[in-house]
């Protein structure tokens, strides 16, 4: 990447986030669609709130597939499926510095299924959230981590 472009991108990025943080403004660039409040949540409650829920009910319609023991916390495969039609899904790791790992938006015609890989700093409960008809439900699973993957 050319130096100028990089500098411009950096300037643009810092300007935009500066604006957002001081005035709470939402502007036009793509990056602002990112749910900053949710990704900066340091606790389950903060993330739940940023996602527009207080405490989602546990539901057997949500299935979280992940290993019981992850030898390497840097790469933990996690899969969410739901028997209901999903609009949105999210993966939360209770003991990570940033609790929300990822969220997904599922348009009509796309299945309620996603697999990805996440980092875990230590053993923790992992939450799979699924939003159906405006309501969040969830599944929880404890994953034990042998070697942490956030600082290493």
């Amino acid at each position, binding site marked *: *990447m050319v130096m100028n472009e*990089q500098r411009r*991108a*950096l300037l*643009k*990025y810092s300007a935009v986030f500066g604006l957002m943080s001081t005035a709470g403004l939402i502007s036009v660039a*793509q*990056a602002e*669609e*990112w*749910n900053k409040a949710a*990704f900066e949540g340091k606790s389950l409650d903060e993330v739940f709130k940023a996602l527009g829920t207080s405490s989602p009910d546990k539901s057997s319609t949500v299935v979280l597939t992940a290993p019981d023991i992850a030898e390497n916390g*840097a*790469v*933990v495969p996690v*899969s969410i499926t739901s028997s209901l039609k999903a609009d949105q899904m999210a993966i939360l*790791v209770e003991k*990570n*510095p*940033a609790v*929300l*790992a*990822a*969220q*997904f*938006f*599922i*348009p009509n*015609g*796309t*299945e309620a*299924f*996603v*697999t*990805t*890989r*996440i*980092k*875990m*700093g230590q053993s923790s409960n992992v939450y799979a959230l699924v939003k159906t008809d405006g309501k969040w439900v969830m599944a929880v699973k404890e994953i034990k981590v042998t070697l942490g*993957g*956030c*600082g*290493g």
Partner: protein
Amino acid sequence: MSDPMRIRATEKDGIVDVKILMKHDMESGQRKDASGKLIPAWFINMLNVKAQGKDVFNAEFGPGVSKDPFLNFKYKGSKGDKLVVNWIDTKGDKRTDEATVS
């Protein structure tokens, strides 16, 4: 310029299975370099997938997604669908790759 994504998309019984492997360090902002200084966070935070020009998947990532992010999802589609995958990271770097469903 970042390295290309690897995209594999195959159709069976009207369902397209899409696997995407991105190339990105996904710095969490938690790691320290050799001198003990924190390495600033730098990660892909948004991803969009279109098939035939229509959204089929959107993702938002935090720093807790693994290095070289992997995604697998499924949508109702056909062989020959043209997929366009876009990501953007927290420094504003972007990458677009295309694939055809087989």
